[in-house]
Structures are given as C-alpha cells and as structure tokens.
C-alpha cells in the first residue's frame, strides 16, 4: 500500500504532463487533467506522511534489485514530512497559474501546466531517492523544466537572466557528477545507506573532502553565500507563478539534500565553516533586501536570508539544530510561496511591483493586505505564526551549542526582515494610488481564481502554525533518524 502511494506521487504528475501535451488545443480539459494529476500526488503524499508516522521508514526497491546495484526509494520521516508540503504548494500554484495565464503577466498556458508536472516529479524524486545518482537525475529533471519555464517567453530580459541561471546551474551539475565519480572511486557505491556504512573506513580527510565538495554543489542550488549571485537576478524576471514555485521549492530542495547528506556522512568538522557561511548568508540576504525597491526583488533577497537560518541549524550538527532546520524548511516553503503569489496579485492590481509607483492598495483591496500581512509577520518571526516557532528553534539550538554568533545574527536578521516587510507594506498598501496607473484588466473569474489560490496558500501557512507542535515532534523524530543513521542503513540494506 505504501509502495502504491510512492508510485502515485512520482507518476501522477508525469501522467498529467503526457495528457496535457496531447490536449494542447483543449485548454479547459488540459487544466482539469493537470490539476487531477497534481491533486493525486498531493493526496498520496499526505497519506504517505501518516503511513510513515505510524509504521516507520518504508523502502521501495525498484525492480527488486539489490540496493548495491539498483535504485531504491526511501520514505523516512524527513522525506515524508517535506513531501506533502511541496506537493500541496505546487498544486496551489498551478491553480493560481490557471487564473493568471489569461492576463498579460501570465506564462504560456500550453507549456506551464505540463512543465510543472515534470518539475513536480523531479522534486518528489529528489526527496524520495536513496542514491546519489538518482538524485542527480532528479535534479536534472527539475532543473531542465525550470530552465524552460524561466526562458519560454523568449523576451530579452528573460533570456539575459535565464542565461546566468542556466550556466550557474549547469556548472553545479557538472561538479555534482565529478563528486559522484569521486565517491564511487573512494567507496564503490552511490547508494547513500551503503555510503554511510563504508565512509567511516576512509581517511578522515577524504570524508571531509567529499563533504566540502558536496557543500559547494548543493550550496549552489540552495543559494548560500557566496554562491547565490544567480538568484536575485533571475527570479524576479520570470512570471509570478514560476517565481513562486522556484522560491518556495527549488532552493529548498537544495537545502533538504544538504541536511540529509551532511548528516548522513557526519561531517561534524565542517560545522564551524557552515555556521560562518550561514551567518554571512543571513546578513547579506537581509541587507540586500533592504536596498531594493521592488516587491519581487525584496522577496528574492529574503529567500537567501532565510536559507541562512536553515543552514545555521544544520551547521550546529546537534539534534536540536537539525530539528530547527527541518521545522524552518517546512515553515518557509508555504510562507515564501504566498508572498510571491501576493506579489503577483499586486502586479495585477496596479501593473507594476515597483514600490515607488504603487500605493493605496489597503483601501482598494483589503483582502490582499491580509494575505500579505500573515505570511510577512510569519517570515519576520513574530508570534503566534510558524516563523516564530522556527526561529525560536534555531536560536535556542544555537544557545545550547554556545554559538553566540548565530544567536546575534539570527536576531539582527529577524529585525532587518521586519524592516523590509514594513517597507513593502508602507510602499504598496499605504499612501495614495499613483496617477499613472496602467492596470492590466483581468477578468472577474480569473481574479477570483487567483485570490482563492492565494487564500488557500495562506490557509496552508496557518495550518502549519496551528500544527506547529506536532510538526515539531515529527521534525525531532526526523532529526533523530538523520543524526543516528543506523536505522536508515538497516532499513535500506536489511
């Protein structure tokens, strides 16, 4: 039964893609099919979460091959916790995209739906995979669809920023393959469980070298300092829906893999380096956001700043730190997505997301103000929202590990985040509307669809806040499993 759920999560979106591509001329039918495929994946992933919570790690050997040779998919607590959040987010964004695509800001509907299906399958596979090479293939699946999503409009701006994005990511993928070659030469396997089993026999320097190499590889995908330069330039130029998926998911998958891999190989000595990188990432992202005057650009820099918090949790290499990092990941994905969706609605309302040319949305659209306020406060880490619990987790874990640096930087970063959220608030929602408002006419039903998608996403962030307690428990269990990989190894090889 659990195996069926895993297969549904992976194949549902791909089936929707195939159907969507053959139904190019039937817009409505295509939308329904895409939504059905993504809903199936979301429902299966939620069921999987409960199954794994009750029954423990489940291992699916594809074709029943020996894990030394074949592909294994492993659903442990960590994977089962992150998977439903990712799937639900993609489903909501697709709903928003269906509303937005008929406006001037929307992406090409014939392509977005099917490509989101491929991206979803890539995301699910990279969460579930149990070996490094399948992870590489999953990353490529995800990245190739993201390249096309970013550049398919073919405007000068998109090509310019898309080029940076593609070249950076291709280079990181090349380094990833080199890393796989090194790992195979050193251990004779790419399976993560076998790797964790055999790595301790190697020279410690070789182990740390592998850890450092993959820190660069996954760090580029996660946009940590100093490897983030591709992000703030490429994200804001894409259509909102696409930026929302990228910001909510792609960098977070890089982070997910970092947390999994570096705990598995127990790269504790890299901890101080990771903590330093995390501190700089937090501060650079927060200051970068303050210097911007466009809603989407501010939000893009915040993606970087928040990655710093997760990295700090990882760099402590304690169970509390890893718990906080996982909780932050789960809190951050929906929050960031809503903020970008609201950014898209702002663009629709007034034709621009530039702060200097906007204002007065508070009176014209109070609902939008509410949709912005909830995730913005959560992002800044104010109670009672999920951001508070997540930030508190990071800070208290840093306290326990005597890391004064992280405590200070995390608090300062929180204040700076609040400051730039205030900047958006006063620029967009307060004041009087600009005179030269070139509104993009969106039909009433499209607007309603986009609003309800944003409302749903806001709902997800509230659900995460309400169930923060039980998510915390599951994060703690996941962190415990990651810190003591014996049970993971036993489940995969046994």
């Amino acid at each position, binding site marked *: 039964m659990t195996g069926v759920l895993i297969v549904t999560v992976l194949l549902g979106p791909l089936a929707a893609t195939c159907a969507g591509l053959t139904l190019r001329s039937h817009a409505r039918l295509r939308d329904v099919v895409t939504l059905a495929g993504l809903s199936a994946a979301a429902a299966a992933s939620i069921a999987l979460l409960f199954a794994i919570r009750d029954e423990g790690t489940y291992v699916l050997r594809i074709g029943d091959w020996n894990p030394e040779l074949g592909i294994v998919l492993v659903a442990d607590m960590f994977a089962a916790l992150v998977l439903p959040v990712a799937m639900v987010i993609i489903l909501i964004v697709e709903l928003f995209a269906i509303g937005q695509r008929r406006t001037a800001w929307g992406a090409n509907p014939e392509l977005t739906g099917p490509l989101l299906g491929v991206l979803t399958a890539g995301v699910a596979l990279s969460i579930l995979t149990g070996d490094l*090479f399948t992870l590489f293939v999953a990353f490529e699946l995800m990245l190739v669809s993201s390249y096309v999503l970013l550049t398919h409009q073919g405007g000068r701006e998109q*090509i310019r*920023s898309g080029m940076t994005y593609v*070249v950076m990511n291709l280079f990181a993928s090349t380094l990833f393959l080199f890393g*796989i070659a*090194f790992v*195979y030469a050193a251990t004779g396997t790419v399976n993560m469980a076998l790797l964790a089993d055999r790595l301790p026999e190697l020279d410690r320097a070789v182990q740390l070298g592998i850890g450092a190499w993959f820190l660069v590889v996954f760090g580029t995908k996660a946009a940590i300092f100093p490897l983030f330069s591709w992000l703030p*330039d490429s994200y804001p130029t894409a259509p909102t829906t696409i930026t929302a998926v990228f910001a909510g998911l792609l960098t977070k998958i890089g982070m997910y893999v970092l947390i999994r891999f570096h705990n598995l190989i127990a790269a504790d000595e890299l901890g101080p380096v990771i903590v330093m990188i995390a501190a700089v990432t937090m501060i650079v992202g927060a200051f970068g956001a303050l210097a911007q005057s466009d809603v989407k650009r501010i939000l893009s820099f915040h993606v970087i700043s928040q990655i710093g918090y997760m990295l700090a949790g990882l760099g402590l290499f304690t169970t509390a730190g890893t718990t906080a990092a996982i909780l932050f990941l789960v809190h951050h994905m929906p929050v960031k997505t809503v903020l970008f969706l609201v950014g898209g609605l702002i663009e629709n309302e007034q034709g621009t997301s530039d702060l200097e040319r906007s204002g007065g949305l508070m009176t014209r659209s109070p609902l939008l103000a509410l949709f912005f306020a909830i995730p913005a406060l959560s992002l800044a880490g104010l109670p009672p929202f999920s951001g508070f619990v997540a930030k508190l987790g990071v800070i208290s874990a840093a306290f326990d590990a005597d890391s004064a640096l992280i405590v200070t930087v995390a608090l300062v970063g929180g204040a700076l985040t609040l400051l730039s959220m205030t900047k958006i608030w006063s620029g967009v929602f307060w004041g009087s509307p600009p005179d030269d408002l070139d509104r993009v006419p969106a039909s009433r039903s499209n607007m309603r669809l986009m609003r309800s998608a944003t409302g749903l996403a806001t709902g997800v962030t509230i659900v995460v806040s309400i169930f923060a307690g039980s998510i915390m428990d599951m994060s703690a269990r996941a962190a415990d499993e990651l810190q003591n990989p014996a049970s993971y190894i036993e489940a995969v090889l046994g």
Partner: protein
Amino acid sequence: MTIGLLIAVGALTSVGVFLITARSLSRIILGFALLGHAVVLALVAAGGEAGEPPLANRVSAETIANPVPQALALTAIVISFGLTLFLLALARRQQELTGDDLVEDDLEDLRVAQ
C-alpha cells in the same frame, strides 16, 4: 591506462573551465561540452581497472569491467547532450534579439557597482 585517463580528465577540465569564463555564449557551450567529456571519463576511471565488455552470458564475471560506472556515464552523456542543445537554442534566441551571442551584464551587479 588509468593515469592516461586522469591526465585527459585534467586537461579537458582546465580547457572547459577556461572556455566557460568567456563572454561569448558559443565558447561557453563548447566549454560545457568539454566538461561533459571530462566528467564521463572521470566516471569511467572511477570504475577501476579495464576488463572485457560487460555482456551477460558472454564473458566470465571475473574478467569484465565494472558495468555500474558505465551505466552512470551513459546517462550523463544523454543528459549533457540534451542540455547542450538547449544552450544552443538559447544562444540562437539571444542572437536573434541582440545580433550577437554575448552574455549581457547582470542587472544586480550593475546596481551594486554604481
């Protein structure tokens, strides 16, 4: 044999990295093609000693080359081939839009420089 492979990997990587730091997209594409070859050779070298072709029921298990890295290399070749085509399409589009295939300045970098 393996030393030869490693020297080839090193040479291809250095030329590839040199090319992708260039400004013109056609050079970057050539750079990625060379890096792709370097990675494939590295994967093959990771497989250990050379041996007979890994064909089922034809050769004995003791004398064959390790088939796993070869399978990985094959996948890597297919992916890098597809991505090279995508980069070529991007370069073509860039040329249509601007008349050349130079990578344009990063807006954020320009703002910081000002």
